[in-house]
């Protein structure tokens, strides 16, 4: 388990990194926390010619709340997001879900943007990004562009980034008042990829669901948002009926793949079960005015 020979660069500025990506195209890979890339390298499943290590780029190491958005730079470790009280307040769903990513040791190295760019369909953070409507800031030598999360994930391990682009920042909208958020997951062990996970937000006024967001991990080739289930929550009443309708939409519409850990019908079943659990939790938090903060 030794990687094939590759050239290694550790630029100290974004410009330098973009220059390297432009020069080497698809032969280059960006190394951030390395929690997915290094195993792939050692197994020789990934054989990039060039590794562009962004860990020396200090300008990518920021976590800031700014005009209604939480901006997460490409070098921000998951552990930072997990522990920062501002994140818990601004994007409680992110703070809750990040704890399901691997273990502390992994989150100490792994980055939020790295997890998003890796685009594992069973990973937690891509589902969060889709649920809250995050935006990905991609830069290349040609300039910068923002990609909505729902357009960013194009397939298993595949994103809208072109080979010369670097995901420099992920922007998560701060939770508006009246919303409650929750994340639930079933995995074999704590820290594994989800057999199924659901990220949810509901906006509650006068006890009724006014708006909802639902996104699923482990339930398709990309993190899947389910507008039909959201509509069912918005339009159904009483809550129990709305929940029943949303769960049945989830079971009807999701098309998960089978793998060695879970059959497609188990995943569909879980999607229904977890939809109910996650919405109840988010609803309670919205009503309590707790947002998504865990005790």
């Amino acid at each position, binding site marked *: *388990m*030794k*990687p*094939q*020979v590759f050239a290694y660069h550790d630029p100290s500025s974004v410009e330098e990194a973009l220059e390297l990506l432009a020069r080497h195209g698809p032969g280059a890979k960006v190394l951030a926390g390395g929690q997915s890339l290094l*195993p792939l390298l050692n*197994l*020789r499943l990934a054989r990039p010619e060039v590794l562009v290590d962004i860990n020396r780029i200090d300008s990518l190491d920021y976590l800031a709340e700014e005009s209604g958005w939480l901006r997460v730079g490409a070098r921000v470790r998951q552990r930072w997001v997990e522990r920062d009280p501002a994140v818990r307040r601004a994007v409680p769903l992110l703070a809750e879900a990040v704890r399901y990513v691997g*273990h502390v040791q992994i989150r100490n190295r792994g980055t939020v943007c790295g997890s998003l760019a890796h685009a594992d369909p069973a990973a937690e953070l891509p589902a969060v990004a889709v649920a809250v409507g995050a935006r990905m800031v991609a830069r290349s030598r040609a300039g910068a562009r923002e990609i909505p999360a729902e357009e960013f994930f194009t397939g298993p391990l595949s994103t809208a980034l072109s080979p010369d682009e670097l995901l420099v920042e992920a922007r998560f909208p701060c939770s508006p008042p009246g919303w409650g958020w929750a994340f639930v997951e*079933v995995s*074999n*062990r*704590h*820290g*594994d*990829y989800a*057999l199924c996970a659901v990220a949810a937000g509901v906006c509650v006024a006068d006890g009724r669901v006014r708006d909802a967001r639902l996104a699923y991990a482990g339930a398709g080739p990309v993190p899947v948002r389910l507008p039909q289930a959201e509509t069912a929550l918005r339009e159904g009443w009483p809550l129990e009926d709305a929940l029943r309708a949303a769960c049945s939409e989830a079971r009807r519409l999701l098309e998960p793949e089978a793998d*060695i*850990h*879970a*059959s497609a019908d*188990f995943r569909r*079943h*879980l999607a229904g*079960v*977890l939809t109910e659990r996650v919405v109840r939790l988010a609803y309670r938090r919205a009503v309590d005015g707790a947002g998504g903060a865990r005790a």
Partner: protein
Amino acid sequence: MATRWLGSPIKRNEDPRLLVGQGLFVDDVQLPGMVHAAVLRSPHAHARILRIDARRASQHPEVLLVLTHADLPPALKEPLPKLIPHPDLKHHKTQYALAPDKVRHVGEPVAFVVATSRAAAEDALELIEVDYDPLPAVVDLEEAAAGRPALVHEDIGTNVAAHSVQRVGDYEAARARAHLVLARRFVVDRGCASPIETRGVVAQWDPKARQLTVWDSTQAPIPIRNGLAALFGLAQKDVRVVAPDVGGGFGPKIMMFYPEEVLVPLAAMRLGRPVKWIEDRREHFLATNHERTQIHDAEIALDQDGRILGVRTVFLHDAGAYIPYGLIVPIVAECTLPGPYRVPNYHAEFRAVFTNKTIVSPYRGAGRPHGVFVMERLLDLAARQLGMDRAEIRRRNFIQPHEFPYDVGLIYQDNAPLIYDSGNYPAALERALEAVEYDRWPEQKARYRAEGRRVGLGFACYVEGSGIGPYEGCRVTVEPSGKVFVATGVGTQGQGHFTSFAQVVADALGVDVQDVHVVTGDTAAFGWGTGTFASRAAVVAGSAVHLAAKAVQQKALQVAATLLEASPEDLELADGYVRVRGAPSRSVSLGEVARAANPLRGVIPAEWEGPGLEATRYFAPPRGTFSHGVHAALVEVDPETATLRFLRYVVVHDCGVVLNPLILDGQIHGGVAQGIGGAFFERLVYDGSGQLLSGSFMDFHIPTAVEIPEIEVHHQETPSPLNPLGAKGAGEGGVIPVPALLAQAIEDALDDLDLEITQMPLHPDALFHLIQAARRRQP
């Protein structure tokens, strides 16, 4: 004998060294000029090798040696040695150092490359061209037994390596008069040990001294030495095998030979340079032995009071591609099945079957979990049918404390009669039931149910064969410094021998346990022995240590008697001194005694049996000794997500006299964790073409501290009459009953569903489908 040390929960002598990273594992061996090996392994489960072209690899600038089967010396072209023959093992097919013309499992070695670095060696592997002609893979065990879809070894005309039957009494007659006969099929699937240290070998050949030194992460350094000497035509004294610190063995490292264990020494001798090979985790999943797959068609016959009249099990054992280790696992399975119960009529019959999968040899439990799963499940299901309490059916069938020695009527893995030496089975169950408040369980369960929680209580009983022969030995030496050195042939893979053996010696010689230095697993330090397996090291080697220490004690008294001008009977050993009882000022240190025992001039009395304060003794038990225990647990099941949480876990454990309760607790904790892993989390998943699809820690899920509950251990001590320590083995008891317990607990948690669990391991998807099927069956 004062027992200041034995029985005390003292901390381990070896831990400070290990915890600060000063252990010596095989990969820590660094030698000048050392080069590195990598193995080309078959990507196919079953294929003919049409052509191997290694020219491009040989031309790689950093490559020193490329070996294929054609390049091996005649002795290594043959299949590697047969380990444990058995009259019923008709086709004792063993693995090759490198595959000659056919590969029989994914991961089988095809070529071996040595280069200046491991990375270069791996680069060179990619330059070797092998043309394979894939053959249908033999994956399904029942199909394999029927010879479909292919033969793993064509020359024998069958996939069945062995057919074996053992009988006690007359099962058919018992069945004919039974009130209830209950038959089920039980399926146990593959598992593997996953030691934290994978295998590794370093070899160094000194052509002038004609001395071969091999560091090997093995459980059996002495047999490896003997085998290497035979294969390479060397004297045993010219081969030294060191199993230094070993990061977990659990059985698979008792195997001999893994191909790399002969290829690395061969390469070192050809190149005249030290060669290192360290197995990576991916290789480990494919190339280190597995265990566990068996399909049992089992039946129990009972009278109307729930007394067992007889049991029958007819089972298939998946041997994998070769069967070097013989029939140990299925024999242990059939011999463990009767457990703590009187089974007057028993029919056990198995076929060991070749498949195109990794080789099978014992892994912690080694057939015992299968036997216990079948027996405990039969009792649970029978109790349900009889409307009897599951504890009561066990109470009615236990062998009673006054019935020992109890002859089960079978022949065990050591070819000796299966005779339980001692035990107290009813007491262990009552203690476990008391710990989990079994008598109040119905109310407790109802309370959980009222909270909307599904919690089940499960328990399972087992008897663990351990401490088998043939023998182990030990040399105890007191040096003039007063320090005590102990050498034994067994290796240590984390069992704490550096401490428990030291405790035995410290008590005999009256020294501090930290002044006793134990060496294990180095053939240069002690050259006789068989290895650490079958929960035998503490029992067999521990007894040899005891005998040697007692001999040194006697000699110390004799020598000191001359020095102190006293009678040996008036002397005692304490605090590193031999002193006159009642007159402690008249004393001499052990170091002085050691010096006096090895004089430069003068006469050594004949009764000293030679010079030095030293003795070597061997212990050869007549047969194995039998530990036993009961596990009980509370398990919460989420029927909607098909996931589990252990709320409580209690172990009542009887391994005779406890040498060190702290080490013993560690053994049990680790075993339970490994048992839980093997029962619900870890799975070796093969596809229809014989590819392992879960061959990394991404998909093979070893439970972590999050999944493993606190484990309460209760020690019951029923000494063994078969050895001077009264000890019994403790290596496997943590693992053995977990599948049986988990099945019972899940059924109890979901008792409204009338679930029957007859397969292991489970995992969420399997449990989900069981629950769905049970729901569909409901009116």
